[in-house]
């Protein structure tokens, strides 16, 4: 099979204007993936399916990934000019200072597709698409018109991650009910507090149990006898 770089250049030759990036995978399997832009994704997918050499006719898996906003701290060397007294004379001197800069890399939702070829017996080719952000620009083109097997899996991604697939024939929730508002697989999802906490809770569950009891005590009033020390 063609390498990822060859597939990338083949796509760029076949679909004019398509932006394809390679997302490297550092693990020993080295399954690098292709990051498609939403605008040309359907055309690229059609090319991958119909191209005589690739013939990726089988979509084995489609899934979602939630990437939270990431605060990146980096140290940058900055050169600036300061005035300094050298040998009794004031003169401008260039000085290199190390500065710590912080910036927030906005989060996004990602849809990942794994493709194989039944005809050529090769694969996988991994495609990715990313949304603009995690709140209001969550639309991606649906690949269901190209691979029919994406239908239910895209519905699942829509249900659990909240990516809206435009062009999907039947985009409804699949695991949760229609009136459900949340997207449970998002990393900032808070599940309903209906858990019976066992007396020996630990780690994350302990933290949740303590929050739960604090909330209950708050609602029950100040008369509650449990002290914070007794939580352990």
């Amino acid at each position, binding site marked *: 099979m063609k390498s990822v770089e060859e597939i990338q250049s083949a796509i760029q030759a076949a679909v004019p204007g398509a932006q394809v990036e390679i997302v490297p995978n550092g693990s020993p399997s080295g399954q690098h993936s292709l990051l498609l832009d939403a605008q040309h994704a359907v055309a690229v997918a059609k090319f991958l399916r119909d191209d005589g050499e690739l013939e990726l006719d089988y979509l084995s898996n489609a899934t979602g990934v939630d990437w939270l906003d990431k605060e990146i701290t980096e140290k940058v060397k900055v050169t600036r000019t300061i005035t300094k007294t050298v040998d009794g004379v004031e003169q401008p001197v260039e000085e290199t200072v190390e500065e710590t800069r912080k910036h927030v890399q906005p989060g996004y939702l990602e849809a990942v597709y794994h493709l194989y070829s039944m005809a050529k017996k090769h694969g996988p080719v991994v495609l990715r698409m990313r949304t603009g952000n995690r709140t209001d620009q969550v639309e991606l083109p649906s690949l269901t018109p190209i691979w029919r097997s994406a239908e239910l899996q895209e519905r699942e991604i829509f249900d659990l991650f909240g990516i809206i697939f435009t062009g999907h024939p039947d985009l409804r929730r699949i*695991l*949760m*009910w*229609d*009136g*459900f*508002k*949340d997207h*449970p697989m998002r990393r900032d*999802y808070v*599940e*309903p507090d*209906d*858990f*019976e*906490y*066992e*007396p020996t809770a630990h780690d994350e*569950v302990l933290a949740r149990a303590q929050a739960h009891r604090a909330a209950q005590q708050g609602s029950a009033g100040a008369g509650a006898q*449990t002290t914070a020390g*007794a939580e352990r």
Partner: protein
Amino acid sequence: MAVDEKLKIELGKQGILVTTLQELYNWGRRNSVWPMQFGLACCAIEMIATTMARYDMARFGAEVFRPSPRQADLMIISGTVTKKMAPQVVRLYNQMAEPKYVIAMGACAISGGPFKQGYNVLKGIDRYIPVDVHIPGCPPRPEALLQAFITLQKKIDDQRLTGEQRPPHLDEKAQGEFPVPKYGEHDLEPSSNPGVWPVPITIR
């Protein structure tokens, strides 16, 4: 009982059957408990195995799995009850005719099991309907289901037809229907039926 056990056996040897209405009634009921034919998850496979020749649940008078709740006496909650499925399970239970019994089979049905801390699985069907026998296990073996069934039969046998301990179907004041939970925006509403399942208090 009004009749002495030994006397009854003696009379039996002479070909005289002495019994009470209660005994006869309970004997008939416990030997013809028909389960409802429905399975929710992998425990259902064990339930099916229990009905087949090797374990042969028919020995206990429970061979007929009824496809309609109107004809069933026993509901075996065999498997994970998701929050999406829970209202339907409660509705089916409400549609069953009295007397009716419930066996919660497997870790998921009794407590949520491995999915207890998840978002989409009910943390035990006893939050919404009264359960007669709980079976732990993941999944429980067919022997465990038979054990639960025998336990249920003993329970039926011990029921008195009158008095405070009488079963719900002989008690006009007993609750017949249980509220069906509604799909809320974040969870089922209510998250448990207060009359059935009090929120447990942890004592430390």
